[in-house]
């Protein structure tokens, strides 16, 4: 386990260095702690402890040769990053298969051990960047990136950044637009394909009954999410449609529903990290369906 205490002291030490001016900062090797300090300064929102954002593997004093942003620190993503000499991986979702990256039940797990060894052998640092990227001001970083990918930036509601007023379409046509733009083989929907859609509420990523139910009950025609449990929000949407409400729900898959937000994250980092390359590593959709069976993973070694 890492020593959280020493990480904090390193971070605060680095902040002091930065405050002293660029001349001092230039003299020392660029470390993960330096990058994290700059992220704190640039996020535009208060930095809070207690969420899931933390260094998952590696240490803050390690030198950074390059930065990879990605949606999920899958083994494939780590390999792709290592192959490009991008040793700081900024991931929106976990490394060790739970939201909190809990390890208590995984210490003897062979895949955990193998992944950790790979990270250590390649001098990787993995940073979980979830809560603060969503909390970014003035707009959630994931929302900004997804809107950009969909070409919806100009349609965003001024008061409610999750809400988009798109040119009138139908649920079926919008599904096809998502399929084409996000390369989404297995997106799913609840509702009438002919439903007229012009107001779209978005909750990229996972969306539980709350806030999902109020989003579906609001002024939007449809809600777009990454995933939800079948017995909560999905069941609610089914009942809403069965009760005659003109509503729909689009379920894109978690990775595809958020990952272009991490492309925007790479662009954001480039604004204040000039010393090393910063690249977004897109992931391939995890799934296929029998209509189009494919075997695509990012790296095969």
């Amino acid at each position, binding site marked *: 386990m890492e020593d959280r205490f020493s990480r904090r002291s390193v971070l605060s030490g680095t902040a002091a260095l930065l405050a002293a001016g660029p001349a001092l900062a230039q003299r020392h090797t660029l470390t993960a702690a330096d990058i994290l300090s700059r992220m704190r300064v640039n996020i535009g929102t208060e930095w809070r402890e207690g969420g899931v954002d933390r260094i998952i593997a590696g240490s803050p004093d390690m030198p950074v040769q390059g930065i990879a942003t990605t949606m*999920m620190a*899958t*083994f*494939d993503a780590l*390999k792709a990053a290592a192959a490009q000499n991008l040793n700081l991986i900024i991931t929106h*979702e*976990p490394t060790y*298969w*739970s*939201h909190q990256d809990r390890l208590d*039940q*995984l210490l003897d*797990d*062979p*895949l955990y051990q*193998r*992944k950790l060894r790979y990270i250590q052998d390649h001098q990787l640092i993995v940073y979980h960047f979830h809560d603060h990227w969503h909390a970014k001001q003035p707009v959630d970083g994931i929302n900004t990136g997804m809107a950009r990918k969909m070409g919806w930036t100009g349609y965003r509601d001024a008061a409610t950044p999750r809400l988009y007023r798109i040119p009138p379409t139908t649920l*079926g046509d919008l*599904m096809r637009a998502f399929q084409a733009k996000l390369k989404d083989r*297995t*997106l*799913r*929907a*609840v509702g009438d*394909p002919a439903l007229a859609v012009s107001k779209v509420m978005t909750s990229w990523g*996972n969306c539980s*009954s709350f806030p999902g*139910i109020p989003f579906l*009950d609001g002024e939007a025609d449809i809600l777009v999410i*990454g*995933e939800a*449990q*079948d*017995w*909560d*929000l*999905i*069941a*609610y949407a*089914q*009942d*809403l449609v*069965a*009760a005659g*409400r003109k509503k729909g729900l689009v*379920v894109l*898959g*978690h*990775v595809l529903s958020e990952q272009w937000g991490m492309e925007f994250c790479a662009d954001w980092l480039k604004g204040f990290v000039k010393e090393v390359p910063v690249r977004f590593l897109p992931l391939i959709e*995890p*799934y*296929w*369906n*029998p*209509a189009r*069976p494919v*075997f695509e*993973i990012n*790296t*095969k070694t």
Partner: protein
Amino acid sequence: MAEQPAPQRNAQPDFLRAPPHTGPITALQFISRILDKTGAPNRDKTIDHVAAGDPTTAVTGIATMALASMEGLKRAAAAGRNLILSYDPPFWSGNDDLDRIEGNSLFLEKRDFIRAHNLVCFNLHDHWRDRAPDGVAEGMAKALGWTQYQAGNPALLHLPPTSLESLARDLQSRLDDPTIRVVGDPKLEVRSVGAMWGTANQMPAIKLLNSPVDVVITGYAREWEAVEYVQDMIATGQKKGLILLGEVASVDLGMKYCAEWISSFITEVPVEFIGSSKAYWSVG
């Protein structure tokens, strides 16, 4: 009016004689019989409970279903089946947490429908899974014709050799599941399947994936837990696959078997399985 027989002198007084059970049977009485018959112990914390309705209601018929959806309740009410036994509950949360839903118009509509039709909704989940054998696993194996392949455990199956793609196609057509999703190499050779009907939670799924099974079949797994774990296994050269059917498709026929099983010991009222319509559609 038939003439009353003259009372016998030595007859027992009425209050000592058990009355013949000809009156209506309440939901609670049926629920107790069903739970007893599962033989499953009560979990310390269980989600099996009366989620809606008055448990003293006289039962006119029993309906089993995967999810107590609005559509399922309407079909049950139309058929006169007022005791609903569902794997997943009516009010859109695992434990029917109503705190934030009380003023919700769809909640009121569904609750009022349940009241107006004298329905009683019971969540039959834990006892049905804890039964020996697991009722859902047994029902799914029966429906898929897999009972002969069970390896001492209805959720562990040694199938005739097939590929991941063929298995997925077979499940798609037999479960009529248009939105089945698969992780892994379509050409993966499959002989051994571990089934986690319903939901695959993180650690049980990881343990099953590390056992000698080629494929895990489940309804739903979070796309940051078992889905990525199997992707990582594949990325390190392990030959594994994961099939996600959707929760309802993965338990529906387990609740069909539940109706057959209940019919074997409840004969006073009709017992019927109500199949769920598809949760989702997709675009080709």
